[in-house]
């Protein structure tokens, strides 16, 4: 029997841009709430309907259009909330490319925002009036460009009559800067077609409808906050309830209570969020929380730990949470956001494999308990997207159970990196040597992650080739951290350090810093003082508390033939305790 959902699916399939999407929602459900913002203690503070959102975005779009050409970039510096969404859709309606970035901390030393502004050469910067007023001058100085015009989200002038020009399907919608180092950031070029394709994949994978209320605390400059949550609810016509990221970190139970109060069906975050909920809640605080409405608890953007999932399900079972709601997923900004996902109500695939086998790049059952390594499946490729496991040396697809690089193809794979042809060719232009089917040889995205598929097509991530440290869902690049360390004290050797991630089975990812001390300084320095200085520098620049800082004699770290530190080998030396510590 054809119902409203069928006609809705047909309407969604006909959309060409995010502007079309917003107009559609404002037409079919103008008075339904699109977004609701909670205070840090969980009280409803501000809401906006689809109709009002379209009105506010349209007014902003006219002001944007009066100051820019379609295709120009606009930095979006709004905290998580309604202003962000108005700013984002203002750009969409004006055909301007949105560039969401984290608002730099006032006291923050170095961050990526300066290099991002230099890379994408924005015409505009859009922020709430409070930010423009209080920080406009300081931020303009930080970006070092007087060519950026600041625009506040709130209407402070008559909207000009110039009608904005709508974007076409393959025009860029926004740039997502989560890849590349601080010094050389890479902006993923996400088109309207990419976004709509991935939003539809997420809709079908989750079975989302207008009733699929979300509660999200993930920052909107993060693809999981923006696309998986805030744009997905708009796509399906559901309500997204926002909580500030810092409010969640301080009191994770505010998130859970909001899920209960608003009878949310979908809510999630990176793995650490689930640990935080358990670690920072006492049984007596759970009174009145009923999580039986929560159908999809998505978990992605950092390695997913079996122990985290088990502990969370156990801890919140008394609040009505069902382990069947656990919903691991996998993706990356280069594929818009989501590439694989679980099945609603299917729970997480938690399996044991042989540790030795995994080291030999084969997924086989463990010999005994000591050999068992637990891995969590990330779900299956969401059609029409595809996932292949590939030998990174030969480009040949590997059979199930063999570990190789995870490659992704489909309409959600982005167009490349902004003005970076070399990186685009390396990452986006991969070709399969022996494609299983004709026409599937090209257009593959290399993820840099290692993994395997089981016989049912479930993807298991089992390490990574790329040098990246993922802490709380944020990608950090070792060269940036090493650079921060070496700049913080003259006794620390330039190019004499290694920063890497350690993952200890069920431990969350941690950052280890190895650093050589100059020969002449070795007897003059106080190692404790230097370690404190390094900690302060790394916390200040990267917001990471290092797990361990090790100071070494010069020449302790292994070099490549070209004289660079070998991070992988350095990590092995650290793990085996073979380093000559100061």
């Amino acid at each position, binding site marked *: 029997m054809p119902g409203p959902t069928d006609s809705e699916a047909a309407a969604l399939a006909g959309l060409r841009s995010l502007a079309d999407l917003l107009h559609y929602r404002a037409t079919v459900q103008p008075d339904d709430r699109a977004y609701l913002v909670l205070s840090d203690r969980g009280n409803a503070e501000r809401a906006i309907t689809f109709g009002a959102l379209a009105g506010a975005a349209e007014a902003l779009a006219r002001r944007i259009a009066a100051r820019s050409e379609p295709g120009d970039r606009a930095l979006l510096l709004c905290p998580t909330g309604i202003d962000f969404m108005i700013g984002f859709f203002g750009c969409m309606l004006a055909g301007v490319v949105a560039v969401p970035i984290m608002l730099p*901390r*006032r*006291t923050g030393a170095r961050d990526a925002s300066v290099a991002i502004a230099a890379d994408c050469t924005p015409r505009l910067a859009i922020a709430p009036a409070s930010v423009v007023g209080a920080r406009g001058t300081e931020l303009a100085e930080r970006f070092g460009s007087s060519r950026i015009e600041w625009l506040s989200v709130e209407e402070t002038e008559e909207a000009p009559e110039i009608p904005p020009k709508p974007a076409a399907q393959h025009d860029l919608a926004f740039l997502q800067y989560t890849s590349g180092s601080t010094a050389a950031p890479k902006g993923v070029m996400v088109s309207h077609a990419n976004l709509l394709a991935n939003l539809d994949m997420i809709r079908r994978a989750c079975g989302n409808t207008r009733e699929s209320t979300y509660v999200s605390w993930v920052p909107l400059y993060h693809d999981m906050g923006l696309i998986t949550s805030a744009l997905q609810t708009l796509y399906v016509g559901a309500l997204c309830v926002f909580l500030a990221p*810092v409010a969640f*970190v*301080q*009191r994770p139970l505010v998130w859970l209570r909001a899920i209960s109060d608003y009878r949310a069906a979908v809510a999630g975050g990176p793995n650490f969020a689930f640990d*935080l909920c358990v670690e*920072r809640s006492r049984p007596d605080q759970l009174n009145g929380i009923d999580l039986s409405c929560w159908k999809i608890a998505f978990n992605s953007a950092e390695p997913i730990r079996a122990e985290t999932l088990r502990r969370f399900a156990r801890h919140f079972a008394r609040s009505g949470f069902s382990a069947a709601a656990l919903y691991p997923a996998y993706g990356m900004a280069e594929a818009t956001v989501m590439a694989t996902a679980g099945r609603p109500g299917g729970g997480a695939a938690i399996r044991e494999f042989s540790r030795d086998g995994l080291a030999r790049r084969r997924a086989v059952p463990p010999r005994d308990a000591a050999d068992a390594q637990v891995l969590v499946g990330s779900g299956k490729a969401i059609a029409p997207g595809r996932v292949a496991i590939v030998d990174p040396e030969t480009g040949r697809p590997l059979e199930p159970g063999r570990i190789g690089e995870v490659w992704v193809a489909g309409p959600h794979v982005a167009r490349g990196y902004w003005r970076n042809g070399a990186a685009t060719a390396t990452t986006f232009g991969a070709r399969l040597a022996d494609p299983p089917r004709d026409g599937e040889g090209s257009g593959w995205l290399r993820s840099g992650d290692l993994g395997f598929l089981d016989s049912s097509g479930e993807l298991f991530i089992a390490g990574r080739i790329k040098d990246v440290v993922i802490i*709380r869902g944020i990608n950090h690049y070792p060269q940036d951290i090493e650079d921060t360390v070496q700049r913080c004290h003259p006794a620390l050797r330039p190019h004499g350090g290694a920063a890497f991630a350690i993952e200890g089975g069920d431990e969350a990812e941690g950052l280890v810093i190895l650093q050589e001390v100059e020969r002449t300084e070795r007897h003059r320095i106080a190692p*404790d*003082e230097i*370690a*404190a*200085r390094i*900690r*302060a*520098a790394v*916390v*200040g620049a990267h*917001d*990471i*508390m*290092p797990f361990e800082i090790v100071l070494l004699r010069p020449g302790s770290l292994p070099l490549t033939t070209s004289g660079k530190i070998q991070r992988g080998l350095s990590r092995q030396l650290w793990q085996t305790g073979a380093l000559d510590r100061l």
Partner: protein
Amino acid sequence: MSRPVVSEADIRVWCLDYLGRNFADASLAGDPDASFAELGLDSVHAAHFIVELEEWLGVELDPELIYEHPTVADLARHVFARHFAGDSGDARPD
């Protein structure tokens, strides 16, 4: 529930004790002039620290406070002056 009457020194002692239990670093333990950054407090650990302090004191504190008052001595001075300086005996402002 009434709020405890605290002194600046009480706040300092509580903070040093909390940090000592959670961020033990032999060289900095007990130093009220060591910065939170030197102790390794990232934004998540800082947020938790402030929440615990809030709950102990029974007053609301801005999670960004440690960036404006980056040492235990600074923070205790600020929090005391802002929330408790008028307190004496049973006279407790809300």
